[in-house]
């Protein structure tokens, strides 16, 4: 097969097909265009101001490594005037985090950025190894997730930095949209799609500059720039529900690569419909950032699902099609908005932010989730803690749907 030439420069050999538009690009054009698009995301959403101090949540994985590399490049190229540093969380998982922290330390040298590491051990008195020893492997993602969100904020506060950027990519956002759609949680869907989550109560703002970047392109960017990143699987726990959503997204991408950005776009449009979302175009969402970030950073749960859920879905689709052909179309009369009696949207529970009475961290509850979980750990009664903490977003708590999905998976594999 003759080598394909680059769509952009029409000279070099194309090595990449872009998922979003199928453009075939050479290495140099790809790197340039990837960076330019991140720059556009940053400028159109006014993510930074000159002189801003920004902490990059760095795990040593591909996303945060690419984020650090791109931000450094753009900061120099476009003169953002940012003061960048790396902020890493040490969950205290031996054999997992140790190696990735070594990567972050090398990144700090490679990108000439200061690095701060905050540990669960020092913050909470519990490392994840100790948590797992206490509660077992099931449900520990909840602890890790809740602790991580706060840890990033606390680390930033120590550095007196008010803006933390994370490496969440388009695939992560699409996954979160799907998960919240399946759970029927529109408020969280809305918060998950916004590029910036600022909180009324917390000084620290979170943003995702790679929100529109495909995971595939992030990996290829890292590959073609030969970035030093670490990839492994968390040795604890598959986060089952997210894993299924992830498999679904990857399967969809295979069939129709633009699906991922389309889901992100749909998520943004749905978010605009959520009352009090304040998120008309996926830009800013004021909410409890601390509770909402779904940790794409620990996503290593995949790889285990068999794809059975897709098979089940295909069967379902086939059945639907069959059924459709037998259906008679029924048209509902168009709804006329009546003045004075306009359709009241279903009341959506709005989070009211306060402070945790134990630790002072922002929380919609009297006691924040981290403190509730810690209470349970300290009292040696983790089961209670899981139930209390779970109501909001425990991935492990089975909704009926999830149980069905898992069931399908089992019977199909």
């Amino acid at each position, binding site marked *: 097969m003759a080598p394909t030439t680059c769509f952009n420069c029409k000279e070099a050999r194309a*090595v*990449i097909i872009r998922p979003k538009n199928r453009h075939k690009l050479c290495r140099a054009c790809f790197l340039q265009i990837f960076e330019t698009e991140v720059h556009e995301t940053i400028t159109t959403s006014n993510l930074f101001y000159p002189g801003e101090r920004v902490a990059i949540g760095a795990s040593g994985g591909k996303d945060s490594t690419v984020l650090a590399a791109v931000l450094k490049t753009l900061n120099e190229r476009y003169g953002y005037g940012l003061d960048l540093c790396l902020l890493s969380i040490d969950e205290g998982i031996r054999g997992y985090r140790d190696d990735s922290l070594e990567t972050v330390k090398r990144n700090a040298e490679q990108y000439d950025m200061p690095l701060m590491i905050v540990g669960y051990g020092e913050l909470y008195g519990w490392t994840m190894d100790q948590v797992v020893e206490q509660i077992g492997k099931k449900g520990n993602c909840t602890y890790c997730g809740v602790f991580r969100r706060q840890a990033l904020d606390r680390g930033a506060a120590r550095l007196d930095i008010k803006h933390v950027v994370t490496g969440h990519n388009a695939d992560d956002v699409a996954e979160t949209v799907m998960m919240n759609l399946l759970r029927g949680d529109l408020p969280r869907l809305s918060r998950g799609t916004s590029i910036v989550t600022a909180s009324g109560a917390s000084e620290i703002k979170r943003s995702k500059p790679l929100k529109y970047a495909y995971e595939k392109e992030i*990996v290829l960017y890292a590959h073609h720039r030969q970035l030093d990143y670490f990839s492994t*699987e968390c040795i604890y726990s598959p986060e089952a529900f997210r894993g299924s959503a*992830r*498999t679904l997204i990857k399967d969809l991408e295979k069939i129709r690569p633009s699906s991922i950005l389309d889901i992100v776009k749909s998520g943004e449009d749905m978010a605009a419909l959520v009352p009090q979302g304040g998120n008309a175009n996926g830009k800013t969402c004021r909410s409890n950032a601390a509770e909402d970030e779904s940790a794409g*950073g620990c996503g*290593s749960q995949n790889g*285990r699902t068999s794809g059975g859920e897709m098979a089940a879905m295909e069967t379902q689709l086939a059945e639907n099609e069959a059924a459709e052909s037998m259906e008679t179309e029924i048209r509902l009369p168009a709804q006329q908005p009546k003045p004075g009696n306009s359709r009241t949207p279903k009341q959506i529970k709005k989070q009211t932010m306060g402070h945790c009475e134990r630790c002072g961290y922002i929380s919609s509850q009297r006691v924040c989730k981290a403190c509730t979980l810690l209470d349970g750990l300290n009292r040696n009664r983790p089961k209670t803690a899981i139930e209390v903490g779970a109501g909001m977003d425990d991935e492990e708590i089975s909704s009926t749907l999830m149980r069905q999905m898992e069931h399908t998976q089992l019977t199909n594999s």
Partner: protein
Amino acid sequence: MTKSANGGAALSITVEFTGGLELLFSNERKHNITLPAQMDDGSQPNIAYLVRYLVDNVMKDQRQEMFIMEDNVRPGILVLINDADWELEGEEKYELQQGDNIVFVSTLHGG
């Protein structure tokens, strides 16, 4: 051309696993692989053959589903043929050439 173990002409290529996939392949990133230059039916070995060969002969980890799905490379794993996306080269039907460098990169692993 070198000779393979059974005396026929052989094809030497390099295979790399990154992005976490190396964990499935004895934690070795780079593997030198020798394949027969011609299949029994006269065709040349392609990527599909290579993938099967890797699963049967190189992969010691039991979790095959982390690498293949329905006999194809699992969605979420990128394949680069001499640094180019395999979609540009005919995907699993690409016929391997002497000295090719094939990279499998997982996008599925976290960090």
